[in-house]
């Protein structure tokens, strides 16, 4: 890669080579002699930021007043207000209208019958897409009903719907604001970057502190999590409105509101719909995590099963989330696709009437036949014993080989690498990374990555951070080693494109926690399970970008290579690889980001790094350490992002084109 990135010419090249070769070696040599505070920061130098943040937040949530009103009262009022629509939706979908409790319990109206909901959704799928999606919707619905997950699923759906609506509205508003004011955009982008890289667990606790345990705390945390992609999508979508179309708005004398409502938003709708799809997926991703702070439903089922070590039940409920996710994902994707290809008028007025009938008739029937309202418990299926049996079978019969793989990897690769990173003096590591920043992106990049690293140093999380880096580097390397070649191979076989794309899409709809289950089933707790889970989660972007990189190579260039007599390997080495390098580097970047976001989830299986710090402080209710450790994870992510993005930009500059 070095020969592509660096092309010597004159003084600049001399300076670059100097930065490339001599300095790193000198620093490496110096590390052998670095001792004392430059190798390990003494305790007195650590800034007790965690205490300050914790104290500050506690004060804010309990004591602070704004204009004589306690912040705590405001947030509790917000929580109550948010709970109302969730309750209405639950009444509609899951519980029915009930008054009183115990013996006085009265059913006034039943919830919408499962049959009606499934049929109406299938009709929607049929109209928007076709028979395939309608069938998929039926199957997913049937799974939820027959496995006795319907009530939980509808509770989840109620909060998902509300989260999506809130995130959509807020995201749109913020996106429009950022689009109109460059100053706001700079601020928002910085905040969003941090929000996207700070692990979710970090802000669960502050939300708990402010809103109390319950569905509304889960709602707020989820909205915070799902907001950044919507803001991003809104800004991009509005920017994509052609200049001529905006001129049209001015020439026809549109007011600001008319321009926004009649021109910009409608023209941007296809891209906004892609944002909607992302919000839905992010929200579903949060379902399990949100159940830790009081969202019920499927997420809670999974969590409870995990705590009981009942893998079978956890797996079933997890697949319930997947069923919900796949249907919602496909529906929103199809809607986005229809928007961008100009397929309209698919849903007619008659269809609305049919859908209402489909909803009302089974619901009315459920007054007479209770099975239409709630699937009787006695009729539910379960495969949990089978899965539990399979796990114990594997563990009984393959314990030896599995354990051998685990131990060999741990002792041979993982532990030595971790020890090496932990032994490296922080000053040398910071210098080396800053140097890499200088070589790739110049002085500014060097400066900002150094600052980010120093934040980790002074807050006292250096060692935990190095443990995180070790897990991330290993799992990214493994994911890339498997994913990139596979993606490149697939790109050469057009017939495989669609099936692989479908598998990748489905993998991305799985909630992160689902990846942990098989790893833990087979390899028990510990770093090795975490590694497997992270790799299997982060492999999707590696494959995706491997395919995309190769697809973006201009066909003329390949033809030129072939006509110059290149062998297939030479075409790859001299034409395809250089052309796709920027995309491939962005793929590495995406893989790193995915790995980091999984890292914190992987803390559940007992790793010892930043993610664990975040998770334990959540469990102990310590706000400060949770947030600061989370910020440290964000710092690692931002450093990797800065280095890899400038690397991609450099590669693209040589290429003369950026296809990002």
């Amino acid at each position, binding site marked *: 890669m070095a020969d592509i990135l660096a092309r010597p010419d004159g003084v600049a090249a001399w300076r670059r080579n100097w930065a490339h070769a001599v300095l790193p070696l000198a620093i490496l040599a110096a590390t052998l002699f670095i001792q004392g505070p430059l190798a390990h920061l003494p305790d007195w130098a650590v800034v007790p930021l965690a205490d300050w943040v914790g104290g500050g937040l506690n004060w804010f949530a309990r004591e602070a007043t704004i204009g004589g009103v306690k912040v705590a009262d405001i947030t509790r009022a917000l929580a109550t207000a948010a709970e109302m629509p969730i309750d209405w939706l639950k009444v509609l979908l899951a519980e029915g209208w009930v008054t009183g409790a115990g013996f006085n319990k009265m059913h006034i109206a039943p919830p919408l019958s499962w049959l009606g909901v499934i049929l109406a959704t299938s009709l929607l799928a049929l109209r928007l897409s076709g028979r395939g999606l309608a069938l998929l919707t039926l199957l997913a619905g049937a799974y939820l009903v027959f496995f006795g997950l319907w009530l939980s699923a509808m509770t989840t759906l109620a909060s998902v719907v509300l989260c999506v609506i809130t995130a959509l509205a807020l995201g749109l508003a913020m996106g429009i604001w950022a689009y109109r004011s460059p100053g706001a955009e700079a601020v928002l982008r910085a905040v969003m970057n941090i929000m996207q890289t700070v692990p979710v667990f970090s802000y669960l606790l502050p939300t708990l502190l402010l809103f109390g345990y319950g569905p509304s705390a889960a709602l707020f945390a989820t909205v915070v999590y799902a907001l950044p992609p919507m803001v991003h999508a809104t800004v991009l979508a509005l920017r994509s409105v*052609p200049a*001529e*179309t905006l*001129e*049209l708005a*001015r*020439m*026809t*004398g*549109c*007011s600001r509101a*008319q321009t926004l409502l*009649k*021109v910009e938003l*409608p*023209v941007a*709708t296809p891209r906004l719909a892609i944002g909607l799809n992302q919000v839905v997926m992010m929200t579903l991703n949060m379902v399990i995590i949100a159940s830790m702070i009081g969202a019920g439903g499927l997420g809670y089922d999974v969590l409870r099963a995990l705590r009981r070590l009942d893998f079978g039940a956890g797996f079933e409920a997890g697949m319930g989330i997947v069923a919900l996710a796949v249907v919602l994902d496909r529906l929103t994707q199809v809607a986005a696709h229809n928007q961008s*290809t*100009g397929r*309209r008028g698919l849903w007619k007025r008659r269809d609305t009437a049919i859908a209402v009938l489909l909803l009302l008739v089974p619901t009315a029937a459920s007054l007479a036949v209770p099975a239409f309202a709630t699937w009787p418990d006695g009729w539910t299926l379960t495969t949990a014993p089978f899965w539990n049996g399979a796990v114990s079978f594997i563990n009984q019969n393959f314990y030896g080989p599995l354990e051998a793989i685990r131990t060999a990897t741990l002792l041979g690769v993982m532990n030595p690498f971790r020890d090496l990173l932990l032994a490296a003096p922080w000053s040398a590591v910071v210098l080396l990374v800053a140097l890499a920043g200088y070589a790739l992106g110049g002085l500014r990049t060097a400066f900002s990555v150094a600052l980010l690293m120093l934040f980790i140093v002074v807050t006292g999380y250096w060692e935990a951070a190095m443990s995180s880096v070790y897990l991330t580097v290993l799992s990214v390397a493994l994911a890339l080693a498997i994913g990139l070649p596979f993606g490149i191979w697939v790109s050469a076989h057009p017939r495989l494109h669609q099936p692989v794309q479908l598998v990748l899409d489905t993998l991305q709809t799985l909630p992160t926690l689902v990846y942990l289950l098989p790893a833990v089933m087979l390899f028990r707790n510990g770093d090795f399970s975490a590694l497997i889970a992270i790799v299997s989660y982060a492999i999707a972007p590696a494959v995706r970008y491997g395919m995309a990189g190769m697809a973006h190579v201009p066909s003329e260039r390949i033809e030129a290579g072939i006509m110059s007599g290149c062998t297939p390997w030479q075409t790859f080495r001299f034409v395809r690889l250089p052309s796709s390098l920027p995309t491939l580097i962005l793929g590495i970047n995406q893989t790193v980001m995915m790995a980091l976001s999984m890292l914190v989830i992987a803390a559940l299986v007992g790793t010892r790094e930043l993610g664990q710090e975040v998770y334990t402080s959540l469990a102990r209710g310590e706000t400060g350490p949770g947030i600061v450790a989370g910020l440290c994870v964000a710092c690692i992510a931002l450093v990797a992002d800065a280095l890899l993005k400038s690397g991609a930009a450099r590669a693209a500059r040589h290429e003369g084109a950026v296809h990002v």
Partner: protein
Amino acid sequence: MSEAHLISPSKAVEARPVALEAKGVWKVFGHGAGAFGQLPASARTPEALASAKLVGAVQDATFRIGRGEVFVIMGLSGSGKSTLLRCLTRLIEPTAGEVRYDGADILKLGDKPLVELRRRRMGMVFQHFALLPNRTVLGNVAFPLEVQGTPRAEAEARALELIETVGLKGREGRFPAELSGGQQQRVGIARSLTTNPEFWFLDEPFSALDPLIRADLQAEVLRLQKTHTRTVVFVTHDLDEAIRIADRIAIMEGGRIVQIGTPEELVTRPATDYVRRFVAKVSPARVVRVSSLMGPFGGGGVTAAVKADATISEIAPELVTATGPLAVVDPGGRQIGSLDRQRALATLAAGA
């Protein structure tokens, strides 16, 4: 085509009342462009521009367009023609200068009167059509009226009228994505005329279309102009198109207008080498009019009558069959001079 030229000879243009006037319009890009605009007009020179490291997209554009005239701004890409058009409509704020509509400077207008001016008196056609993909043909054409708050029924009735005029009747329920490029631009044309504007701006309207469709739409523009004469500013990079449509053409090079004149003037008397190279391929017979070659009324001996404002190539059949000089008549049919056949044939042969 000849009907459209009834109104076009250059003398008639001069006689028209001025509808739109640009006076020393500059559009300068770069750091410190504002300061350059504050300089006195005499200090705004290409040298000053270069020394301040500014880019002059439009430099000192000055011209008058008569009411009902078709004024074509023509130049290669990057010559500043589209920027000049946008300065005229104030889609781009000029750095300096005046743009007068019926004597009133649009650059001094506040937001409200400007919006009012654009709503009531201007229409614009865009290079890439700028149709709203979420609206049907009807919705697109009715859009300018809808923005003004015209009642829906009235707006749609007017829109249907225009859709019929541009030949898209029966397609008003389609979405833009379901139309061909030529049909889409017909929608664009219909939309720009919904409000029945006095000023019609067309920004390279046909350059995204293939040649046959382009010819159809040029004819369409001429036909619309004939039925309802508007003051037209038409930007193009295609000289053939310019000659076919224009009363007068302004040729731009590197931000400057190098010559303004009728097609005939440009071809027969190019002002600079640049214009000469530009028009070299144009056969003079296409642009030279009978009136330019007309001799005094000699009396007797004429064989056929030709119109004074016809081009030589238009009267080619008469020239071939005639045996002696031809009579030249004005639109009223009175003979006003005679045309020497040899001289006309020489023009017809030149550059052919």
